[in-house]
Each structure stands twice: as structure tokens, then as C-alpha cells.
């Protein structure tokens, strides 16, 4: 299960005065089971990119190959591809519509033409993963809190048993507790279900905690890519794009400049605490 994006270019309103190049010759390869972070500010092209992954937008120039299959080539495969690549939009709770939580989560699988029994099992599994207890399955999704609604909406995508899960800003607008809850669940899914996860986020802290590899996108192009340690060390490059490194990376840099012997590539709070303790114990 690998994803290969080759020379992908996308232009909105081609040929009109509002023409806008949203993606410009993007090349990305993602291996099965990887946890990928996608960073870029508003209008950088990330949303356009992820909408290509399950053919909500068809590649006009370039191609996307998932598991050896060129997606977007065959219209009859659309549903199969959309269940393989689950896409959770920003504020997914805005898409809830059913009378009960259970029915809403079942919407995806029943669209796929899956039997009622299998659907029931999938719904229960999906709701369990996101931490919604069975005694509220029959409640209206609109009675839930913001964080719960969002988890139900994510379950709605999980119930389709995707192999790749793409999440667009899953923590936007949540309080710290809701954010930790969601991120923890996403981490679980990645580990337990062996999902390939692509996490789109503004928050460097969130990304730093979770991902294996990062792509930074700017003006429709991949500006930086690499392991978190490599990316977060490039403070100047990130700032030039209008982003920033993690707060911890800034602290580490200041400490280094002040003469403390810290190694390079520190970007998480846990790591810096460990290194500082080592330094302190040496004295």
C-alpha cells in the first residue's frame, strides 16, 4: 500500500481571469503504515492536494498511483478508492445529519453496499476506536459536545475501513483536552489498525509529537520534506515560508547559543527535558 504522487499540477478556473495554480508539479511517495505530517498555511494547496487522494478532484496533469492503481483513470472504481482512502475534512462534525449516532456512522459502509451485519460490526468497531460508548449509540449526534461530535464524524470515515486516513486539521477549534483526546485516538488508530495516516495541521506541536515524516507545502510546491528532526532544525527556512518551528526547538536553539552543550535536532518537550537533565547531572 504505497501512494505515489507524480508531477501533480492543479489549476482552478483554468482559462478564466480567476485562474489560480493551486498545485505545481508535486512529487510525493508515501509508504504503507507511515505517519505523515503535511504543513502549510492557508491557501498553500494542502486541501487541494488531499482532495486528489480520493479523487474528489481528478488529476488533470500528473498522476496518483495507489497500490499500483492509477486512481482517477476509471470512474467505476471511485467508490472503492474512496473507501480505501478515508478523508476527514476540517470541522467534520458539520457533515452529521442522521437521527442517531449509529445511523450516521453507518452512512459510509451502507453506501459501499456492505451487508447490514457487517455494517453493524464496523460501526461498533469504529465508535469504539474513537471512544464513544455503546449506551449513547441511539442518541442524536446533535446532542453531543463539540469534541464528541468530531469523534463521531471521524468514526463515520473509519467505518469504511480505509487503509489510508487523511485528516484535515482534526484539532481545529477544540479545547486542549479535546485536542489531546483526538490526537491520542489518531495515534491509536495508526498503531492498532496499521493505517497510513496523513495529518494536515498548522500546529507544529501536534505534528512533532506524532509523525514519522513531514512535507511542508508552500505556493503549491513541496518546499521541505524529511524527518521531523530535520525539518524542525530548519528554523530560518520555516520562518521564510511564514511558518515556525516548535517552541521547544526555539528553546533548544537559545540554550545552545547561550553556551549549553545540547545536541541538535531537539523539537519535543520530552526530549529537551531529557537532554537538560543529562547536562545537569554531568555537573
Amino acid at each position: 500500500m504505497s501512494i505515489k504522487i507524480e508531477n501533480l499540477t492543479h489549476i482552478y478556473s483554468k482559462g478564466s481571469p480567476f485562474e489560480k495554480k493551486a498545485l505545481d508539479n508535486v512529487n510525493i511517495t508515501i509508504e504503507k503504515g507511515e505517519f505523515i505530517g503535511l504543513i502549510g498555511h492557508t491557501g498553500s494547496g494542502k486541501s487541494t492536494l488531499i482532495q486528489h487522494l480520493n479523487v474528489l478532484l481528478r488529476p488533470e496533469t500528473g498522476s496518483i498511483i495507489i497500490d499500483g492503481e492509477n486512481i482517477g483513470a476509471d470512474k467505476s472504481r471511485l467508490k472503492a478508492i474512496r473507501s480505501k482512502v478515508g478523508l476527514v475534512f476540517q470541522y467534520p462534525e458539520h457533515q452529521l445529519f442522521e437521527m442517531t449516532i449509529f445511523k450516521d456512522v453507518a452512512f459510509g459502509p451502507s453506501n459501499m453496499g456492505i451487508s447490514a451485519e457487517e455494517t453493524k460490526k464496523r460501526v461498533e468497531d469504529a465508535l469504539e476506536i474513537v471512544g464513544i460508548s455503546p449506551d449513547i449509540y441511539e442518541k442524536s449526534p446533535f446532542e453531543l459536545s463539540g469534541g464528541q461530535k468530531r469523534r463521531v464524524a471521524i468514526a463515520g470515515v473509519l467505518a469504511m475501513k480505509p487503509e489510508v486516513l487523511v485528516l484535515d486539521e482534526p484539532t481545529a477549534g477544540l479545547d486542549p483536552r479535546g485536542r489531546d483526546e483526538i490526537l491520542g485516538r489518531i495515534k491509536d488508530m495508526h498503531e492498532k489498525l496499521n493505517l497510513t495516516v496523513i495529518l494536515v495541521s498548522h500546529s507544529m506541536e501536534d505534528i512533532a509529537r506524532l509523525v514519522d515524516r513531514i512535507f511542508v507545502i508552500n505556493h503549491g510546491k513541496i518546499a521541505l520534506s524529511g524527518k521531523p528532526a530535520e525539518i524542525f532544525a530548519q528554523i530560518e527556512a520555516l520562518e521564510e515560508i511564514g511558518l515556525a518551528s516548535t517552541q521547544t526547538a526555539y528553546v533548544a536553539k537559545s540554550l545552545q547559543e547561550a553556551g549549553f552543550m545540547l545536541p541538535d535536532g531537539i523539537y519535543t518537550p520530552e526530549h529537551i527535558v531529557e537532554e537538560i537533565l543529562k547536562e545537569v547531572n554531568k555537573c
Partner: protein
Amino acid sequence: MLKVTIGQYYHADSFIHKLDARMKLLCTIIFITVLFFVGNFLGYALAALYLAIVIKISKVPPRFLFRGLRAIFFIIIFTTFLNIFFTQVGNVVLEIGFIRITDVGLVNAARMGTRLVMLIIGSSILTLTTTPIQLTDAIEFGLKPFKKIGVPAHEIAMMMTIALRFIPTLVEEMDKIMKAQMARGADFDTGGIIKKARSLVPLLVPLFISSFRRADDLALAMEARCYRGDIGRTRMKQMKLKTRDFQALGFLALFIAFVVALEYLANIWGIW
């Protein structure tokens, strides 16, 4: 990234575009009223000439005007047929079974058809050359006299303005929800009428909910800025009548004078 054109405003820099929206609205209403008083075909020819001149000045490509006609094509056909088949007075031209077509019927049908076409073209010029917001302001002004009998002119205009403002927002929102449901395997394109109607539920429920949420937020934001209806409210863009507005009115008056004269003469000479 969606571009939505609201109404059918065609942007151009012309005499007609620059006219005060109130004057345009007034002229359109007068023109339509006059259309229904014109009885003879010379009068219609004159009205057509008047329209042609206005279109020429407005710089709107004529195909935009005919686009409006296409939408009501069936209504025109329908009224024409009604007039042909259900007018029973006058000399019989053709009689097959229970169908009897008379000369008066034919004339009435032609009259009605011409009127409708010109009515649509006339009002299309108004909507093509006036932005929806200007039009709303003009309507508010026009409704003012009726406030005394309890017509909430300002509120109606405000509602229309807000509705217009939110059309693009809702279209964008709908696009987003549609994509989100498509990502869950929803299918909006295939199936019969019932299946298609049912497939709209996952779209309409979230859209309604978000509209209510937006309405709540908007109401709160308006109150927070001390909005309290039109009492003591001033405008950022004051509407002012200029020389050109009176020129336009003068031109219309000239047209009416010609129509009345023709009508009078036609009566004397006995032309339809």
C-alpha cells in the same frame, strides 16, 4: 475558489449602468405599465425601438437579454395558445371539431406574446445593469410610502441584502458538505427521482443546521453593533439623483408621448 454570479448583473460602464437604481426601477415600472395600455402594433414597434435604443446604450450584449427569455419561453407559448384557442368572439378563421380559431383570438395572442417578450426584456435590462444590492436599496426606497400601512420596508430590504450576501457563502458550504459526503460514498448523480431526492438529505440537513448557526451568529453580531432597524439609520452610499437620471426620465416621457399620440391617431384612423 468558487465563483458565483448572483442574479444576472452584467458589468459594463454605460449611461444606463450609472443611472440611479431608483430611477431605473421607476422607469421600468412605467414602461411595463405603458406596454399594457398600448393597443396597436405601431405602438409595439415604437416600444421595440425604445428597447433597442436602451439596449444599445447599456452596452449589454443582446444574447444576455434573450437568455432571460429562454427561461419563460413556455409561459409565452402557453399564454399565446390560451389566447388562440379560448377566444370565441370575432370572425372564425379556422374551425376543426370543437376547436374554433377567430381573428380576434389571433390578434390577442400576438398582442399578449409581444407584451410578455418586451416585459421580460425590459425588466432584464434593469437586472442586468443594476447590482442586486443597488436594486434592494431602490426597492426599500420604493416601499417607503407603504410603511404607514405597516409594510416593513427596511426589514424587507435588509432581509434581501442578507440573503444575497449569503448565497456565495452557502454555495461554498454546500460544496464542502457535498465533498465530505462523497468521501463517505454518497452518490448524488445516479438513480431515479426518489433515490436522487433521498440522496439530498445528507446534504440539506447539515446545510440547514449551518444556516441556522450562521443566522444566530449574524443576529448576535448585528446586535453587538447596535443594529435596531431603520430608526435614525444613515447610509454609507447616499443615493442622489443626477442630471442623467432626469435625462432618462425625459427620454421615457418622450416615448410615452409618442405612444399616446399614436394611440389617439390609431383610434381616429381605425387601426388596431
